[in-house]
Structure formats: structure tokens, C-alpha cells
């Protein structure tokens, strides 16, 4: 059975400009969630739930971390949550990253709020002994978050559009700095993923997509996108959000 669970806000803090880190307590999700999966969170008074990637899990403390940018009304409401408040979530939702645990080096490429699921992934890869490198793209200095955390996992190249922090440029430029790797894992806005999959078309890769969801469970076809090879379509909410590079039409 899939579940809609009650989660308790355990902590919330601002980690960058309009960007918040929230930890939530829930035994079930903390036990079963995999990197790349998301929570489909209810914000009281709204018709549609908000999908937010799982950025980390503490299986002992049974907490789940999410990182989100405040954009509209729903994420504002989440940002206003305080410790002890309850949130209703469908999760863990979606199909996460798959990878070869014996791979030597993985490259994580994240843009903005595409970075959160890569942190959880990186930790799992490290646990299996995979060497991890990361390229993280942000708009500017004030948007940067989690740099030290990624540094703690492996070499990390921070890119800012305006050069106000780290290296000036896009994540595609960062990839040039990062050297060799076996497989890449990327999450960010569609134009970034297009650029990355083009640039790295000779490498195996996985990408995680964002789209406006309806149900979030596969029932409404709100998130269906054309598949590349054998035709047909994929639902981002259940077949994804993670796909093999080239599997879907971006």
C-alpha cells in the first residue's frame, strides 16, 4: 500500500536567500526512502500538493530533510512552519536514481533547487564506496547552500552565473573543470538538463526532472512527457522524476 503520512516538523532554518532547510520526523519514510524520491506535501488551503525532493535522511533519528526555495504561496506557507507542526505528505513518491554500486567515480551536477536530491544520492554513493565529485550552480553568492556538505563528500566546484562566488559560469563550464567520471547524475531546470545531456552525450547519465504535478501518484496524466526511443510517454511523478539521459524528450 502507498501511504499518505503525517510528518512532524522537527526543525526549519534559512540556509540561503529565500531557501529553507526543513527536517521532518516520520518513521516510515525515513526507513524506505531512496535518493531521487520526493515528498508530495500538502500546504493547507491549496488545491495541489507541492513536490519536494528528499535531500537527506537520518535513519536513526527518523528524520527527513528537504531543501526548498520560497517561490509562491505554498512554499511560503511551508517556510512559515514551526517546530512541532504537522504536515501531510504522500511519500516516498516517485522512482529514484539507479546506479552501479561498483562504479569508480560519479559526477553530480545540480542547479539551484535541483541540488537537494543529489546530496542524498551522494551520501548513498559514498556509503557504497563510490568516489563522488560535484558541480553546483547558483545564481549568485547569496543563493549558495550546502557547499561544505558536498565538499565533505568530494571535490566540489561551485559556479555562479555572475561570478559573485566560486567560478563564474554555468554548470556546463563546471563539468570541464571536474575531470573524469563514469556516470553523471543531474537535476535542475530543463534548459540546464538539455545543455548537460547534450554536452555529455557520450556518458551514461541520469537526470531528474521538474514539472507541474496534479495527483503526484500516476493517475491524472498531468506530468506525462514523450519518451524518446520506443515512443510512448513517461509520467514524471511515478516513472520518474529520474530518467536515464535520452529516455525522454526534453
Amino acid at each position: 500500500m502507498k501511504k499518505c503520512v503525517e510528518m512532524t516538523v522537527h526543525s526549519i532554518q534559512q540556509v540561503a536567500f529565500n531557501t529553507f532547510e526543513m527536517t521532518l520526523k516520520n518513521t516510515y519514510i525515513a526507513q524506505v526512502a531512496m535518493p531521487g524520491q520526493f515528498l508530495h506535501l500538502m500546504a493547507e488551503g491549496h488545491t495541489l500538493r507541492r513536490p519536494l525532493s528528499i535531500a537527506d535522511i537520518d535513519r536513526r533519528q527518523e528524520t527527513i530533510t528537504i531543501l526548498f526555495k520560497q517561490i509562491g504561496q505554498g512554499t511560503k506557507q511551508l517556510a512559515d512552519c514551526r517546530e512541532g507542526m504537522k504536515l501531510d505528505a504522500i511519500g516516498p513518491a516517485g522512482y529514484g536514481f539507479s546506479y552501479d554500486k561498483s562504479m569508480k567515480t560519479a559526477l553530480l551536477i545540480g542547479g539551484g533547487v535541483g541540488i537537494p536530491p543529489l546530496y542524498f544520492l551522494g551520501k548513498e554513493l559514498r556509503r557504497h564506496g563510490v568516489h563522488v565529485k560535484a558541480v553546483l550552480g547558483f545564481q549568485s553568492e547569496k543563493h549558495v547552500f550546502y557547499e561544505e556538505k558536498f565538499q565533505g563528500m568530494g571535490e566540489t566546484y561551485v559556479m555562479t552565473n555572475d561570478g559573485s562566488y566560486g567560478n563564474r559560469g554555468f554548470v556546463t563550464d563546471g563539468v570541464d573543470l571536474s575531470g573524469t567520471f563514469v556516470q553523471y547524475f543531474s537535476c535542475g531546470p530543463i534548459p540546464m538538463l538539455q545543455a548537460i545531456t547534450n554536452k555529455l552525450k557520450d556518458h551514461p547519465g541520469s537526470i531528474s526532472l521538474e514539472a507541474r504535478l496534479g495527483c503526484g501518484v500516476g493517475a491524472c496524466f498531468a506530468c506525462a512527457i514523450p519518451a524518446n526511443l520506443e515512443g510512448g510517454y513517461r509520467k514524471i511523478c511515478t516513472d520518474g522524476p529520474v530518467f536515464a539521459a535520452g529516455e525522454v524528450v526534453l
Partner: protein
Amino acid sequence: MTNLAVDLPGLTLKNPVMPASGCFGFGREYSEFYDLNQLGAVIMKAATGDARDGNQIPRVAETASGMLNAIGLQNPGVEKIIANEVPFLSGYDVPVVANVAGSTVGEYVAVASTFNKVKSVKALELNISCPNVKDGGIQFGTNPDMAAGITEKVKEASNLPVYVKLSPNVSDIVAMAKAVEQAGADGLSMINTITGMQINLSCGKPLLANQTGGLSGQAIKPIAIRMIYEVKQQVNIPIIGMGGISTAEDVLEFLLAGASAVAVGTANFQNPYVCPEIIKDLPDILQQYGFDSVNDAIGKGHVA
């Protein structure tokens, strides 16, 4: 005990609550949340003759107490639905309603008759009101003569009771209802979504790739109630009511307005358990307002 059962043409319902077409796929997803045997019936996602890809994304937008969708009837086509989806639903002791769509009268007729041979499908819902496709759909639903014509043809071709799903995007809903009643419809299903639009300020253009979409959810409930109330006074076939239902109180409001059963759409997205929860709450709500059965309440909101 409060009696929730309702008998409608083709549909012997243990309770009046069913998921609405397009909001429940073909049942698999929500069957992972609860046992579908609790439902009064299941209305499947629209079926067309061939597979349809639907519109580009974004296909949904949130609005105040509602949402817009422009899925565009994406579905694998009637044959694949019968082969791959209906068998799953047949495993439950719940009548299945097939939602039939198309671009031409011929396509509607072909899809409808394809369901003749399918035992677990107990009724058709004729979707002449989808606002999100270029051809067919809503044109049939805003012109009484076209609506009557297509109803007649489908009735001829089908051996199943036909519920015609009316569009609220009309000047005169009663004229539409009467036209399809005279053309032989066994029941009505109302309302489908209301055409709307949202402009995304960040890019300055319509948010949905299809530009317009259908408005659903609590925002449209007063419109649905009004239309059902008006139609109930003028037609004699039963009405499956929908539009913004999310509680057992809402269900009672629809029954009082004249619906004999109800469908729940958008609310499934907010709360995946909404249908079984409504079914659980309904007996108490009926009792609280003085009704011993669903049948007792139907149409009781009408002023003498």
C-alpha cells in the same frame, strides 16, 4: 442503519460515491492506497478510438480553491484500455463506467460499441464536454442538436445505459439536458470543467501549454449545484453530480439539489483517501440532517 444504496440504470451502487473520470486513471494508483471495493463505482479515464498523446506540459495550474487542467484526453485507446486496464478493475466488486470521447460522431460510436462486449463495464459516460481538445469534445457539448444527434447514434450502437456528461460552458443547461433526454440518454453526468486560463506573470504568457484549461475543484461547486438544481426540475432521468465535492456534506448538498449519485474528482489529488472517507462519513451526515437513506435525500432541496 442508514441505507446508502442507489439503483441507477445499469448501476447497482452500494453507495453513491465514485471517483470522477480523469482523476483516478484506471484505478491502479489509488488501489495502492485503499481497497477499491469500498467505492460505489469507478469511472475510468476517457477512452478514444486510437491512442492519444494529449497536450504539451504544463498541463495543470492551481487557482483559488480550484485548478485548471488541459490533459487533452491522453489515453492508450479503447482496445488497450479493454485489454490492459479493465481486467484490473474487474477484479473488484464495483461497477465500472467507461468514459467515451472522440473527435467525430463515428469515433464516439466506435468507442462506445467496443465496450458492448466488456462484462464489467456497466454503463457509458458520454464525454461531449471536454474543453481541452481541438476537435470534438466541447462543440458537441454546447449545441443541443449536435448533443442529441451524438446521443442517439451512441444509443443505437451500444447495449449499455448512456449517461451524457454535460458541459457547464453553455447559456442554457436545461436545453442541453432536455435535448439529450429526448435523444434517449439514460442519465446525465454533470458538470464537466469550466473553461479558464491563468497567465504566468514570470513569462507573461498563459501558463498552460494549451493556453486554456478546465476549471475544477471547490471553486465551481455553486455552479454545479445550480445547474443540477435547474436540470432536475425539467428532466426525469437521473443525474450523477460532480464539481468540487470533497466532504460528505458536499455529497448531501448534491443529493438535495437533485443528484442521485456523485463523482469526486480534484479532491483525490488533495487527499488520496477522500472517497472512502466520504463514504465512511456519509451515514452520520445523512442522519444528522434527518435522512435515513440516500434515496430519501435525492431532490429534497427543491422548494415546493
